[in-house]
């Protein structure tokens, strides 16, 4: 019989100790309560299979893939796409056709000779030739925009035929 008051006293002492270092509080739980019976564990769904999708290696980001080549070069005073660039364009067309959320800019460039605005229009002609080729290969018109940088952003800084050839170019920009 005496065990209960002792227990209570101990509990109160403990409560006093706790309250000494915190603001007075009404005890929320009865000091003595039977431990509730453990709820029965939910049955484990051991036949469920959670699918894991391994991220696709985007061929666009493969530095050795065909899509890493994004420049089409042109002859002097020419806006015709040379046959050697057909595989490159076909690869980009295939990729864009299967990734319709991708949009690209095709930036045309010229060499440094001639007027800035006229070269801008000539660069546009090169960009338009590339976009025309891509749409002919099935790319939606809304995915491609032909623009020109004219002679304003030369890739090669020189003033010789090698530099000019490097700058007569259209770049595909994802």
């Amino acid at each position, binding site marked *: 019989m005496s065990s209960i008051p002792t227990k209570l006293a101990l509990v109160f002492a403990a409560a006093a100790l706790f309250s000494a270092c915190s603001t007075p509080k009404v005890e929320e739980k009865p000091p003595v309560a039977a431990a509730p019976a453990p709820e029965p564990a939910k049955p484990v769904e051991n036949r469920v299979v959670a699918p894991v999708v391994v991220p696709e290696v985007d061929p666009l980001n493969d530095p050795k893939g065909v899509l890493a080549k994004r420049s089409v070069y042109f002859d002097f005073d020419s806006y015709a796409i040379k046959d050697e660039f057909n595989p490159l364009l076909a690869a980009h067309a295939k990729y864009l056709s299967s990734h319709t959320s991708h949009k690209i800019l095709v930036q045309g460039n010229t060499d440094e000779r*001639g*007027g800035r*605005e006229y070269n*801008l229009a000539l660069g546009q*002609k090169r960009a338009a030739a590339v976009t025309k080729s891509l749409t002919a290969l099935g790319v939606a018109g809304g995915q491609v925009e*032909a623009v020109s940088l004219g002679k304003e952003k030369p890739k090669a800084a020189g003033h010789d035929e090698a530099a000019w050839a490097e700058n007569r170019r259209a770049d595909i920009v994802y």
Partner: protein
Amino acid sequence: MLTLRSKLVNNYFKRGLFLGIFLSFSAHAQLHVETYGFGATQIPIAVSGFTNEELAPEMVSKIIKDDLNSSGYFKVLNTLGSTSETDNVDLPNWKSQGADALLVGSVQKLDDGRYDVRYKLYDTNKSSTLSAFAVAGSPQYTRLSAHKIADDVFEKLTGIRGIFSTRIAYVAKNGTNYQLEVTDADGAGLQTAVRSKEPIISPSWSPDGTKVAYVSFELKKPVVYAQNLITGQRTLIANYKGNNSAPAWSPDGNKIALALSKDGLTQVYSVNADGSGLQRLTNTSGIDTEPQYSSDGQSIYFTSDRSGGPQIYRMSASGGDAKRVTFTGSYNISPRISPDGQTLAYISRRDGKFQLYALDLGSNQELRLTDTQDDDSPSFAPNSKYIVYATEMAQRGSLGVVSVDGRTKQRLTTQAGDVRNPTWGPFMK
């Protein structure tokens, strides 16, 4: 005025031509200016020192002398000492020393901190006063006061409005830094209007002088903006699919003609000055670009390759049929029509050289104005007598100024980097 002019011209022819090579360089100049050559007639003028001009931040009489020298229209005689507009002058004595005109003046600091510059221009032949005036300005506008006096002297003695107080805007490139800069016509007083890491091309000054339209590549493609120079506010004028370029203001400032490739290849369109109201003006399967309104606003000159290589054409400002204007050579681009409507300036490629030409639209006489070979982007001074253009000197972009008769030339270069794409601003109050 007319009498004096014809007399001066006659005197000048009697004396024969002076060979003139003038050099001028201001300590404040960002652009270094060199002048070569001289006009068909050079009026001998004595410019005395202005009394008390050493009080002002800049020597007014020196700026005036440099302006008059650079114009090619004057032979500025050396003088000693200073003479104010209230001093008595011995005009027959000045005349005997070869001066057909004499400019004197003074500078006075006002209580409010401004400088009052007064001057008097004498005709030594008729012993009369041609002009007298006072210009008051805050210290930073001392140069402007001097340019305004030079403008008045120029107009009184030649009958042509002076352009010394006008400004030029151009693009400076230093590495990958592009700046749209504004200077006085003499290359001094530089102010930067735009700084960008991407190219800026084709600036075009609005007729009221408060805005410049230009092409910026900041969005990975050419887009046209108009920028208020005073407030710095930029308005997007055209950002259609494809290219947006070659802006040019109509003379009333209400419209901007430009080149867009939104419908395929580059064609000429016009929009209202706020970018609204798009209208297509050309309709070819080739390139139509570089539109420029005539000074009466009725026509648009532009570059087109409809006949093969690029040539200059003219059509109504509302579009429609175009007439070919240039026939010599296989590559004629960048048409600019003089404000007086008499001269068409353009760049022509001949024997592999890109050079500035002027076509007299009355006589159909063509004149090559330069000896350089990478000329680009001509722009007329508002008095129609000079053209500023971009060229290359030792593989660096520099600016040239040439008189429409090709006789007087100036070169404007910077210490480092390239300058290009000049546009000459309008007359301003």
